[in-house]
């Protein structure tokens, strides 16, 4: 394939990935240590993030160091495990029957420490990993449970999660009288309701995480009825955008259910992040200390991360705009890294003279004008954008002749491009997939709009030519030997005329195809499927070339890099992977999301990838070092659409909540909110010159937004520094048009090189 094109690429990329991986594993253990020692409220962000990732990293197929993590911890306690387990079971039984004296006696005689069952006394402020015995107990328990549970455990990978779950869950052991939970919570509620207005909104953020953790503690300690009552009483107070999580939570009433519940796992493995001003925080702290309310204080210290900032407390609107994700807001530090969002310098393409003659045949009289224009473009791109990464930051494939030709075509088309604006809206063409009884799940169009591909729920991928030019296969090897390789039209001769047809079907997947992407040179097609594989198809032979296995779970999305060669994928296993077409193993694994990765996109300069997730956050990852450089929160539902603006500066995201959010990548800020859609947004696309943002949704509409106006705002230093945005609701002003389809959800949008908007979807009569 292309490997011989880029032999030198392989080594540096792969080795750096490996080094990174090992480095990460080290950080995992470091993170755990940090967590133990952590006494203060602030913690090291990086270490914390990687600690959260430990579960995910452990799943990595190639991670031999990773698999050593849990056994290493388990070993010392393994011998005594069985005896202790029996004793603990007896103890638990006694306690359950309120035979507290017997408990005391047995414990004294067995020589068990005080906190072995209680897990933690009131004084312990650690995360519960303190004593080796305690650690051993929980792990032993998990080993036991694994014997019984493993039959129902989804796979080995999840089974390996079990220790972590238990480590986390153990933090929930009894701390106080369950009857008092309601009193504590309503006491705090009363306090927050009486504080000054300016602090109330900020302090109210504490409610939800506190509520969840208290509920889980009750469940964990088998106070089922109390937990239900607690839920009944206070679930109504929570913000409406937590409804989905609350629904999951309320179905969970038994300790047994807590194991293997992914949502819960998410909640536990990460600290809920709150941003609170110093004044408000002091207020809360003083109140809790006055009341001797250790219960709540402990929860706050253990399970919340409070990001304290100096300055004015934020308003309710500001808070609402940023909250909603599974694990609270992003820490401010998480968005401080420098992002090279500028575009790469366009390679200068010299037009050979004979080429120009060819063009002259196609379009009479054009080449004379073209020449000076191209020079202009060349000189413009010579100036290096200060925000652009260096040209060689990520090794990119060299341009082939055909790529150069395509670039030339692109430039020519660009000169005929229509300038769009509020007064000059694009025409919209709709590609309807008729008779798509197999369930259309994904659509992609090539950049030059010549091919359209659909992924279907019946595991097929279908490719159509939307130009009169039919799709042809390359001749068989035997026939290829016959042709004259020296002839000028050899490229034409290798095609088998007999196979010409309007569409081709690609068979290979064994589950619905959820994501597809054309390579920029139109030679390949990627498809990701429920069967856990990503397949690379050749559009010359219409056969499958490679099946990339790595995600062991459904792969929700995949996309080629704008420069080809690399591609990114993400799926149910919460890890996004960066691949190169000539490597069967991923080059990078981006872990950090707390729930499924639902969509993945490449930055126009190929140096970054962005992922959207069911945890309602968006993360931007650096391809070079695998770091997460941006975390955007604010969506209230799983994110299903992402789009970079062509200049690389901005990002638009759409979610099931029907809102489009706009982000400034450089500053790491939310810069706009577009409300209007009434259902999940499945596609977003900027026009070629970034003037218009088009959004397509399940509600059968395409909407056009004035992107120029939306991004035309001054970001002052204060906002940039604190990240406290204040958005005015101007969706109606920005909405330029809303266009109905005939009962066809819009699942893909594409601007042609001349700025004609193409939309696609399956007709559902």
């Amino acid at each position, binding site marked *: 394939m292309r490997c011989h094109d880029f032999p030198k690429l392989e080594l540096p990329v792969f080795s750096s990935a490996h080094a990174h991986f090992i480095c990460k594993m080290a950080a995992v253990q470091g993170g755990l240590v940090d967590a133990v020692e952590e006494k203060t409220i602030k913690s090291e962000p990086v270490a914390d993030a990687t600690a959260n990732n430990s579960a995910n990293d452990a799943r990595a197929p190639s991670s031999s160091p990773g698999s050593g993590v849990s056994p290493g911890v388990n070993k010392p306690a393994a011998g005594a495990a069985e005896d202790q387990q029996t004793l603990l079971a007896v103890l638990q039984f006694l306690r359950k029957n309120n035979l507290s004296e017997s408990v005391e006696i047995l414990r004294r005689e067995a020589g068990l420490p005080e906190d072995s069952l209680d897990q933690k006394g009131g004084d312990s402020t650690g995360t519960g990993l303190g004593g080796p015995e305690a650690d051993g107990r929980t792990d032993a328990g998990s080993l036991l449970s694994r014997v019984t549970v493993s039959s129902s455990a989804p796979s080995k990978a999840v089974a390996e999660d079990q220790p972590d779950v238990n480590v986390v869950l153990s933090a929930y052991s009894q701390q106080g009288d369950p009857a008092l939970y309601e009193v504590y919570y309503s006491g705090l509620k009363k306090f927050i309701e009486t504080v000054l207005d300016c602090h109330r909104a900020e302090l109210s953020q504490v409610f939800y995480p506190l509520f969840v953790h208290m509920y889980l503690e009750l469940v964990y300690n088998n106070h089922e009825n109390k937990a239900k009552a607690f839920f009944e009483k206070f679930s109504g107070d929570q913000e409406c955008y937590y409804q989905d999580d609350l629904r999951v939570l309320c179905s969970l009433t*038994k300790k047994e259910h807590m194991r293997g519940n992914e949502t819960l796992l998410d909640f536990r493995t990460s600290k809920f992040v709150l941003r609170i001003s110093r004044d408000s925080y002091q207020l809360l702290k003083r109140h809790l200390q006055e009341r001797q309310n250790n219960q709540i204080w402990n929860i706050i210290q253990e399970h919340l991360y409070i990001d304290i900032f100096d300055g004015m407390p934020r308003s309710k609107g500001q808070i609402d705009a940023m909250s909603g994700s599974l694990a609270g807001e992003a820490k401010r530090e998480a968005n401080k890294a420098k992002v090279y969002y500028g575009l790469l310098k366009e390679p200068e393409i010299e037009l050979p003279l004979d080429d120009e003659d060819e063009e002259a045949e196609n379009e009479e009289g054009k080449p004379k004008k073209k020449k000076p224009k191209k020079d202009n473009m060349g000189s413009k791109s010579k100036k290096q954008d200060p925000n652009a990464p260096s040209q060689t930051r990520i090794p990119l494939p060299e341009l082939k002749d055909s790529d150069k030709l395509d670039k030339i075509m692109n430039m020519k088309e660009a000169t005929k491009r229509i300038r769009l604006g509020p007064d000059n809206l694009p025409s*919209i063409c709709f590609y309807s997939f*008729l008779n*798509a009884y197999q369930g259309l799940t994904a659509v992609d169009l090539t950049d030059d709009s010549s091919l359209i591909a659909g992924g279907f729920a019946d595991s097929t991928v279908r490719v*159509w030519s939307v130009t009169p030019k039919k799709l042809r296969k390359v001749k068989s090897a035997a026939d290829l030997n016959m042709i004259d390789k020296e002839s000028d039209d050899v490229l034409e001769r290798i095609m088998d005329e007999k196979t010409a047809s309007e569409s081709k079907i690609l068979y290979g997947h064994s589950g619905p195809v959820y994501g597809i992407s054309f390579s920029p040179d139109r030679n390949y097609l990627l498809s990701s499927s*429920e069967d856990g594989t990503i397949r690379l198809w050749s559009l010359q032979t219409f056969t499958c070339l490679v099946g990339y296995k790595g995600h062991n779970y459904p792969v929700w999305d995949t996309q080629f890099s704008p420069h080809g060669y690399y591609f990114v994928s993400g799926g149910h296993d919460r890890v996004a992977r960066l691949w190169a077409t000539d490597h069967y193993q991923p080059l990078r694994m981006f872990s950090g999301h707390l729930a499924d990765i639902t969509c993945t996109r490449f930055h126009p300069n190929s140096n970054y990838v962005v992922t959207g997730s069911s945890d309602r956050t968006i993360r931007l990852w650096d391809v070079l070092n695998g770091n997460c450089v941006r975390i955007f929160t604010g969506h209230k539902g799983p994110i299903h659409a992402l789009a970079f603006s062509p200049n690389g500066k901005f990002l638009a995201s759409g979610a099931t909540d029907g809102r489009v959010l706009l982000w400034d990548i450089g500053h790491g800020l939310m810069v706009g909110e577009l409300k209007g859609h009434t259902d*999940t947004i499945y596609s977003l696309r900027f026009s070629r010159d970034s003037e218009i943002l088009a959004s397509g949704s399940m509600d059968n509409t395409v909407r056009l937004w004035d992107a120029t106006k939306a991004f035309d705002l001054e970001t002052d230093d204060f906002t940039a520094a604190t990240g406290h945005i204040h958005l005015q609701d101007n969706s109606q002003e920005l909405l330029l048009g809303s*266009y109905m389809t005939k009962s066809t959800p819009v699942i893909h949008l594409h601007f042609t090189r001349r700025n004609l908007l193409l*939309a696609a979807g399956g007709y559902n009569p």
Partner: protein
Amino acid sequence: MHTSLMADREERRFAEVSRESIKLMAESAGVELGDDVAGLLAEDVCYRLREATQSSSQFMRHAKRRKLTVEDFNRALRWSNVEAICGYGAQDALPFRSVKDGELYFVEDREINLVELALATNIPKGCAETMVRVNVSYLDGKGNLEPQGTVPSAVQSLSDDLLKYYQQITRAILGEDPHLMKVALLDLQSNSKIAALLPYFVYVISGVKSVSHDLEQLNRLLHMVKSLVQNPYLYLGSYVRSLVSSVMYCILEPLAASINPLNDHWTLRDYAALLLSHIFWTHGDLVSGLYHQILLSLQKVLSDPVRPLCSHYGAVVGLHALGWKAVERVLFPHLPAYWANLQAVLDDYSVSNAQVKADGHKVYGAILVAVERLLKMKALSLSQPVEGGSSAQVGSTMGSTGYRVSSPGLSPPPEPLTEAALGIASHLQAGGSGCPWEEWTPVPLPAMYSELYSFFGDSLAVRFSTGPGKGNYAPCNPSQVSNSRKEPSGATSNPDTTRKMPQLTANLNISPRQDGSPRMDPSVARASSVQRSRSSSSRSGQRSTGLSRDVFPKARFTPPQTGPPVFSFLIGGRQMGRRCQGRRPFQTTFAPSASLPIPPRAYTHKLPVIGRVGKPVRRWTCSHYSLHLPL
């Protein structure tokens, strides 16, 4: 399952599997369960179900669907290592039933005879192939949120103002308010900015076929045609063909409205015929061969005995409206064949035949009027070269040049001449009608008259004799008649004149514009070079009348009465000047003369023809007036 969960959430938060159900299921599997165990199991089952539903919903979201399917649920089960449930993959909803006694619910699961299914002959067809179709949904971002179907979809690309205008106009014309309609029609006639809307109006007019039961609507649509045709700023182009076919429909089709004898569809046909002649006089040059196509279709109808009489009537009226040449070439040769059929209808005095007979009389009358004019015009055409030949020639050349100027870019006369000549022959061969077109030679006037006289007898004579009596409207007629009938020398002189003017006759035959009445043609052409308006043409009609008065100064028969003729002139001359001359005045003048004690046999025989004069005419003039007040 999912939906039921969602629906129940409000009340119960989640559907639950009861302890009893668990026990029952255990029993059916042969296991006895205690209450505690069953309760615990029930709770756990509920939780697992909820969990599976939760995770299945993400398969739904990624498949970009709103509906959770069994397949989604099965996928969730499979990924959590639980066996998938089988047998629920069908797309159709499964009926969920209950047993009356006892609270038992079940899904109906009919037994299927596999043998029958396998050997079934009606093998289900495969699904249609999946395909991608593209359509331009919104041009330049213009579109509306209103559901499709209110207006023709293409109208959406028009500017808002035009769209509004279109809606207002169609609403006004097809609406109830006659005043509004008048205004709308007037505007349609004079608005210079509606060129873009022409296709839509033509489209609306083509809706005649769907309102054939409603004379009023048909009438309104015809008025719309007229306004469009008269609008000097509109270039109709090939839309003429569509308009003509709509009008032809009104002329020829046995409209649903004609089933009821009380409906006056005759007037509609008259008006449509008039309109047809108007369209084709003023715009006939836009589509080559149109004239012959029209003639052919008229002839087809006429020669088809299966068609109802009202269609025949339409054909005759249409031919009449197209000019005497058309009558001469289509109707006259066909008359002997047709006459036999008509006579049979008219001679049947049975009660059941009364209605058909009445219709037959209308056709009879229409033919009579047509052939009369034919005779008159033919006589005139023969006499003109003799005395007013030079002037007519000048007039015709002037007319043709003027017409060329008035409509630039149209096909010049010489071209259609040859083309049309070919067209005639081909039409005839294709049509296969008995009418001898190809060997058509002008029948000399005397022969023609004697033949017609053999059909119509005295009624024809009466027409000729009484016609000049009303010399006010057509003073030329008597002299013509006298030429042809009383002075056989006219017949002898005729061959000379025809021989003298071969080019002229050929020209008159072919070029549609000049084929009408030679008397009218020059003046009409002259007038139309500026603007085709009613007043100018009627004025020219008078002028030409004056001309012929000079040619034939002496009336052979003195008018028996002077009173009624004045009346007839007022209506016929003024209002109907441009329409079928001769017929209308004849009818109007007949009413008073009917009271006279002159009862010729043929005369009473044709009474029904005449009988329809009264009411419809008044109504017609009324409606006409309401539309075009400023004459």
